[in-house]
């Protein structure tokens, strides 16, 4: 196999191919960094161009664009708490607080190291064990998918905020919003209030940008006015301090800091790879499961959400690992795991390559060329963003009076650009105001986003289970994988209750 990989590198390393990969990573990073514009959109736009290129060059460029976009989305999550992709919301949970403490470059470079590691693990697993993992992934039917989503929601409920009640409300609101639009099984419209625009579903981009980016801008405005009107208050001085970066040499990541998070880095990369190999579950499930795991295992669990380095590592390593491993079911079984994988599937078909178990036998040199291209794309992504973090450090100190209108206009451009529908701009605005109000009363917004993303898959899988089992939900307890997942969910709940009771007792004493 090593010989075939070497051959793959020999195929891909030509000046033109390298230039195309570089262009892919750069364009993906730019698109990913604009909230609303995703690398998936970029890939879709570039897809026709790849028809005129060699298969290895064209597909490597597409995958490079995807990788660039994944990290681009995390950069805006760290800098402005405006995640370019829903999965990047987990990176923003600790990345943005660390940036606010004056360490934007440290946050970005740590995220970059985590992203590259996760990506590398995902790539290596894809190259060496794709067939094996894909067979295991086939064991996941609707019962197991529903159980895994329940497990993910339980973890999210426990980790996202300080109050369990508010976390539950947050996740339930997200799940409820996800029911707006057509029913996932019968396609009958629900909660459309006679509006055609609501008969499909709420645009995920409008929801994410509104809830996370626009609400954050309103909050920045509020802090700006606090700063303006009450210069002597402690709140003001903290906000002013947050706008100043720490010294450049302190705002960097050290080997010691990376070594300290190596366990989380490894664990999160593996979690991301395994969940990414399951078709349809995607990076959101992976990042939040990984984040919750890291929080429960960490000695600094209480610091999660306040700029904890392990939080950034957990989210980012898992997010990027999914980026590679979601190609496992595509290449091994011909099952695209998400929208991007579906576009890459289309690109393969355009070039006469049929993904499936026989892929490596029939198109070995091309597949290994693409694998080599993926590794080169990871390397480019690392180098470009490592140096770009110096520029991001400078952006971090832009005055809110300049930055807030810029972000608000970008939010509109991104939302409209994604769907080309004026209605989505209004939806984004409504979620922006809602997000601002919910933040004030400490209801975590991330729970809403996750509930919204996982809701349709949960309902679809659950109702498929009901159909398959003739309405008998005991099937969840007779299938080994779902039983294990549900047992772990229960254990997590009991463990959390035990910890809460213990800490309440200590406070009383």
């Amino acid at each position, binding site marked *: 196999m090593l010989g075939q990989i070497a051959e793959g590198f020999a195929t891909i390393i030509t000046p033109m191919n390298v230039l195309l990969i570089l262009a892919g990573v750069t364009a993906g990073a730019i698109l990913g960094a604009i909230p609303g514009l995703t690398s998936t959109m970029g890939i879709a736009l570039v897809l026709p161009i790849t028809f005129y290129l060699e298969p290895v060059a064209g597909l490597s460029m597409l995958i490079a664009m995807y990788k660039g976009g994944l990290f681009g989305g995390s950069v805006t999550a760290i800098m402005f708490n405006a995640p370019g992709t829903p999965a990047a919301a987990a990176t923003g949970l600790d990345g943005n607080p660390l940036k606010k403490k004056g360490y934007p470059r440290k946050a970005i470079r740590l995220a970059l190291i985590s992203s590259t590691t996760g990506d590398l693990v995902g790539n290596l697993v894809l190259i060496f064990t794709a067939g094996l993992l894909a067979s295991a992934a086939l064991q996941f039917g609707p019962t197991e998918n529903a159980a895994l989503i329940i497990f993910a929601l339980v973890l999210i409920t426990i980790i996202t905020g300080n109050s369990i009640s508010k976390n539950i409300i947050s996740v339930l609101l997200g799940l409820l919003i996800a029911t707006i639009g057509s029913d996932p099984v019968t396609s009958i419209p629900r*909660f*459309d209030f006679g509006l055609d625009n609501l008969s499909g579903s709420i645009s995920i981009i409008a929801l994410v940008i509104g809830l996370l980016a626009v609400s954050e801008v309103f909050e920045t405005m509020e802090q*700006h006015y606090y700063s303006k009107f009450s210069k002597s208050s402690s709140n003001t001085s903290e906000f002013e301090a947050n706008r100043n970066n720490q010294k450049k040499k302190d705002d960097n990541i050290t080997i010691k800091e990376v070594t300290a998070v190596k366990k989380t880095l490894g664990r999160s990369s593996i979690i991301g790879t395994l969940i990414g190999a399951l078709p349809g579950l995607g990076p959101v499930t992976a990042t939040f499961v990984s984040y919750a795991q890291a929080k429960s295992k960490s000695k600094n669990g209480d610091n999660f959400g306040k700029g904890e380095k392990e939080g950034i590592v957990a989210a980012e390593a898992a997010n990027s690992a999914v980026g590679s491993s979601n190609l496992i079911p595509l290449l091994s079984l011909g099952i695209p795991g998400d929208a991007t994988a579906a576009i890459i599937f289309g690109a393969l078909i355009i070039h006469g390559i049929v993904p499936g178990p026989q892929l490596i036998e029939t198109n070995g040199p091309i597949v290994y060329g693409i694998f080599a291209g993926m590794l080169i794309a990871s390397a480019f992504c690392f180098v470009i963003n490592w140096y770009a973090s110096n520029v991001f450090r400078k952006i971090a100190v832009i005055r809110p*009076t*300049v930055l807030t209108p810029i972000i*608000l*206009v970008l939010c*509109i*451009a991104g939302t409209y650009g994604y769907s080309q529908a*004026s209605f989505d701009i209004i939806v984004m605005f409504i979620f922006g105001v809602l997000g601002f109000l919910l933040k004030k009363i400490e209801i975590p917004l991330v729970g809403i986003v996750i509930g919204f993303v996982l809701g349709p898959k949960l309902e679809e899988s659950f109702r498929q289970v009901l159909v398959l089992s003739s309405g008998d939900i005991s099937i969840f307890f007779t299938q080994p994988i779902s039983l294990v997942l549900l047992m772990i969910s229960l254990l997590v709940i009991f463990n959390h209750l035990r910890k809460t009771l213990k800490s309440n007792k200590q406070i009383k004493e």
Partner: protein
Amino acid sequence: MDSNYFKVKEIYIYGLVVLLGLLLILVVIPMEVQKGEPRLFPFIYTTGLLIVGIANLFILAFNKNSNHFKFNKKIIKYVGLNILIYTAYIFLIQYVGFFALSVLFIIIQMRVLGEGWKMSIIISVVLPLSIYLLFTEILALYFPSGVLL
């Protein structure tokens, strides 16, 4: 000092959650969702909201030291003004056009926030123009054009 602030008690929040749950279960779901399976999950989620809301209402009703949230009236007024400007931008964009309205929005918003004229004018021209060119010329996406560009 306290006259500058208004307070929202935590119990009101859960009261609102219960009201929302009741409204959904009694009015919205029966009106907006066809009977049968499509109602199953909206009912499950709403029941969850009701349970959490009612449980917390009971807990807080017997807790004298319940939490509350304070809002500075003056600050909220200024943030409200900015939100109002953004609202106008959102609703007028399809009638006026992205480029022209974005120029106007950025100037007004930056001035209201306290930014100087020079920076406001530079940003208001450079940003919408860059976005407009990126979207329409490179990505082949279109913006609402309205009566102006």
